[in-house]
């Protein structure tokens, strides 16, 4: 079997750049990378305000102090605060997966009895996809305590933050699930029903397993976004990484703390992002293998 030019990269069609040998390509890409990095570095280092910017954003003592924190001086450890982001993310993720799946199944249902639920699910997705997450966080975080109820109104900001994130992200993830379910060919449903599975059984054993495999990359994409959006919960008063960075900056008038928070978020999100890339590549390889004669 002759390899077509499209297969050469094993990543699909090349969009940029021409042919040429492997060595020449490596040399060219190295050279272009060096030039780009050098130009950016030169711009940064030679700008009139460079020393000022380096002091304000990259001062080593400030980077260190904001990372470890010192409550007696009025600021908190960003390194400890990111742990709250991680916990909020992990808890929210579980609830989102469950809630979004229920929503998606309701939206995909066809029975006439389910109509009222379908309408509610549709309205839910419309509203929570349309309202900015930060507004949902405000509404939940300041609204529920104002109700003055027993358990509902006495939770901490992190709990309200997680509730708001679950409300907001479930609407997105519901649509991702739906896309996955719709991507399973209709013939599969027909086949499942014809061997005697009920509608629920065919959903559980035939449709969902195939749907979930398709949507793992977009799901992880949403979760990367969720990891970052845990920072929004800071508006409710909880000291998470972003808030700890803001407090440091406001106390010492130096922005290096934001760089620390940014790096910590990168450390969290980059592995997940590359895991997503890996899954996409693996899935693609499988499909290509499956399609080969």
């Amino acid at each position, binding site marked *: 079997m002759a390899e077509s030019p499209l297969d050469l990269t094993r990543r699909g069609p090349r969009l940029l750049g021409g042919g040429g040998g492997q060595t020449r390509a490596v040399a060219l890409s190295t050279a272009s990378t060096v030039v780009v990095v050098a130009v950016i570095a030169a711009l940064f280092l030679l700008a009139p*305000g460079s020393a*000022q*910017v380096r002091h304000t954003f990259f001062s080593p003592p400030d980077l260190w102090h904001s990372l470890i924190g010192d409550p007696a001086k*009025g600021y908190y450890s960003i390194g400890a605060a990111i742990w709250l982001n991680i916990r909020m993310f992990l808890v929210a993720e579980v609830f989102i997966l469950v809630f979004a799946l229920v929503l998606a199944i309701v939206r995909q249902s066809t029975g006439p009895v389910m109509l009222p639920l379908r309408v509610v699910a549709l309205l839910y997705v419309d509203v929570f996809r349309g309202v900015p997450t930060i507004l949902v966080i405000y509404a939940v975080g300041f609204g529920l305590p104002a109700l003055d109820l027993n358990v509902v*109104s006495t939770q901490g900001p992190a709990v309200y933050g997680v509730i708001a994130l679950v409300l907001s992200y479930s609407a997105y993830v519901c649509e991702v699930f739906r896309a996955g379910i719709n991507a399973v060919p209709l013939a599969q449903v027909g086949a499942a029903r014809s061997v005697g599975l009920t509608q629920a059984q065919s959903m559980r054993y035939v449709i969902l397993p195939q749907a979930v495999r398709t949507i793992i990359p977009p799901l992880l994409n949403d979760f990367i976004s969720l990891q970052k959006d845990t920072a929004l919960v800071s508006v409710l008063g909880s000291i998470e990484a972003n808030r700890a960075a803001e407090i440091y900056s406001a106390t010492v*008038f*130096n922005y290096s703390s934001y760089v620390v928070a940014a790096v910590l978020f990168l450390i969290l999100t980059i592995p997940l992002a590359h895991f997503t890339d890996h899954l996409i590549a693996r899935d693609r390889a499988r499909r290509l293998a499956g399609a080969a004669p």
Partner: protein
Amino acid sequence: MVEPFDSSYAPGPKRFDFDINEISYSAQRAQAVSFSNSYYDVQQSLIALKGSPIVTAHSPADLKGYVFGDQIGTTSLSFINTLIQPTQTPKVFNTLNDVAQALATKQIAAFVTDTPTAQYITSSGEIPKSVMVGQFPSTGEHYGLLFSKGDPLVTCVNQTLATLAANGTLTALQKKYLQLYLTVPTIKP
């Protein structure tokens, strides 16, 4: 022109000659910007809801046990952390309105703010049933005008401030507008 507090200390050229916005002087802040001398000496006050435990029990030891909240970037928040040193981490909000809302819904037991603001919040009904528990002793905190680091204008403004202080203008203004503050009880952090 209106300059948000957060950008008032950003590096680079300023869009203003000086910023006068009840910005408190601190030695750490003065490493990044220049401040004029004091135009007003500030004390911090404690605000809580009427009938809550902190209104009656606020010895220095008692104070450590409460959940405080405050606005980010304020000297009031620093006051809580450095002088009250509560056992539970305070909740830190974007705006004083959010702090007020958190107090009204009992998310926090009390918050600290400078006396002029505290007086306004409790008397204007901004938080229903709120009360000034007391005023903390002066920590030497004062408001100054904020300038770019090393701006020569500072000297000029300081001369004017000295004149206003010497001829009694500053005292007269404080008596005229801020008389009430002298009647608030003093408590210890």
